């Protein structure tokens, strides 16, 4: 007998770890479970991002918006006060833009409810004159009060409203939906972690004999955990790619449908390049979560044996 070659001991690397545990790959349920989770997470995240964009765009658009209504029944007096109000507002420093909404535009807006007026001005239903005002900066209660006071003497029929106030309930509801999307993402992440935990436990159970052998041959917990991390990480990567493709396709199709509506507010909820990059990062986060969960599960199980 010749002496076998000397070997290095305590080397940190574990060559060909992938050979030690058989893999089911796409034939097993794990990649598909992760694919579904990732697809749902991508959809929930894109909904959250779209709502955030929509809310931010709408809020930015109306932040400095103010509507002045001249509520006066007599057409001539209404016209006079409207002209005075426009003149006064135009001269104020904090006002960036003033626009008198033309009567024709008002008529067109009200036509679906009131029908075509088509009568003499004196006989028509009195419609307030509308002035659209945009301030430099947001409409604060103090600024609103100052403007109201400045109009009170020369245009007593003027009523001022901050546009943001009208949208407050809508933006509140949108914020709730954003939180709901965030909650869904957390739940899906927890469910994914639980699925990986179960898979790791199952893999540990079905490979118990192999693990014990490696353990008794001097394999460290970290080496054994790496075998499972690698296996589950590959499953998660496969699932992540499939999930991202499914979720991304669903989001793209929905985006196209919403874009087709042509609604200004909905258009503000489109996804930008940064949003798409965030969505693309979800499978990466999923793989990292799966690897971490697998590692912690395996290490916890191994600590129970000597």
């Amino acid at each position: 007998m010749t002496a076998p070659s000397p070997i290095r001991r305590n080397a940190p690397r574990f060559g060909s770890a992938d050979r030690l545990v058989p893999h089911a790959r796409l034939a097993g349920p794990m990649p598909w479970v992760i694919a579904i989770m990732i697809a749902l997470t991508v959809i929930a995240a894109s909904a959250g991002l779209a709502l955030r964009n929509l809310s931010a765009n709408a809020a930015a658009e109306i932040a400095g918006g103010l509507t002045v209504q001249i509520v006066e029944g007599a057409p001539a007096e209404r016209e006079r006060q409207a002209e005075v109000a426009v003149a006064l507002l135009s001269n104020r420093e904090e006002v960036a833009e003033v626009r008198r909404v033309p009567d024709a535009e008002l008529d067109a807006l009200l036509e679906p409810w009131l029908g075509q007026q088509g009568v003499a001005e004196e006989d028509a239903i009195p419609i307030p004159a509308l002035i659209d005002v945009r301030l430099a900066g947001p409409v604060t209660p103090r600024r609103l009060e100052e403007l109201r006071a400045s109009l009170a003497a020369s245009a007593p029929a003027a009523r001022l409203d901050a546009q943001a106030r009208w949208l407050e309930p809508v933006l509140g509801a949108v914020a709730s939906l954003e939180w709901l999307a965030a909650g869904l993402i957390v739940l899906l992440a927890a469910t994914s972690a639980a699925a990986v935990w179960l898979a790791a436990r199952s893999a540990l159970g079905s490979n118990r004999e192999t693990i014990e052998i490696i353990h008794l041959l001097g394999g460290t917990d970290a080496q054994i955990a790496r075998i499972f991390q690698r296996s589950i990480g590959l499953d998660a990567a496969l699932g992540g790619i499939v999930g991202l493709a499914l979720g991304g396709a669903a989001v793209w199709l929905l985006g196209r449908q919403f874009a087709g509506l042509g609604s200004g507010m909905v258009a503000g909820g489109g996804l930008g390049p940064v949003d798409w990059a965030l969505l693309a990062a979800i499978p990466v986060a999923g793989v990292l979560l799966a690897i971490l969960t697998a590692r912690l599960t395996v290490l916890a199980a191994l600590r129970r044996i000597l």
Partner: protein
Amino acid sequence: MSGGEGSIVQFDNVGLRYGTEREVLSDISFTLYPGSFYFLTGASGAGKTSLLRLLYLAQRPSRGIIRMFGTDVITVPRGRLPAFRRRIGVVFQDFRLVSHLSALDNVALPLRVSGVPESEIRKPVADMLEWVGLDQRADARPATLSGGEQQRVAIARAVIARPEILVADEPTGNVDPDMALKLLRLFEALNRLGTTVVVATHDVHLLKKVPDSLIMRLDRGRLSDPTGALRYPPRREAAS
């Protein structure tokens, strides 16, 4: 127990019980010296496998002290035990081959666990398989090997990393007398290279085949010393 200097393994008043049952091993004290060849004998149920499990660090004792390679392995942190296990080769009674790996990959396991580069694995593993007469079955899975062939793969795996201690639990139990003798010669050859060999067997005929061996006998969990194996310095008497 006296002495212990220069020993590779030292058991001092070791006891082992599983759960709340009575002790399966009691007051076990002995010293193993580098380069010696020991037989551990005893009837079935005497505690041979339990004692071997303590030796290859699969089990902690309920009491007593175990020193291996100069270190108290009872108090050593769990994370340091793998380094000790890599210095011990084990032939399990039930072989414990990894079913989905080929004979070659099974034999290569200790080298891979030790982090030996793949390029340095194939040659020694092939040599080892040739040495145990299985070079033609290198790619066979354990399920397709006979009991004797599986046992030889298990032995090749136990010795491939040149362990300082080789522990074998009934290593000739599944082979014919010719192969048993051949395997014993293999252990002897390894022993001559400096490995301390501990072979558990209930086959008294086997004891006579290795003239320089020392015998420890287990009887209902207690150790006796028919050849002075437990004394220091060990008497190199032939098994009778």
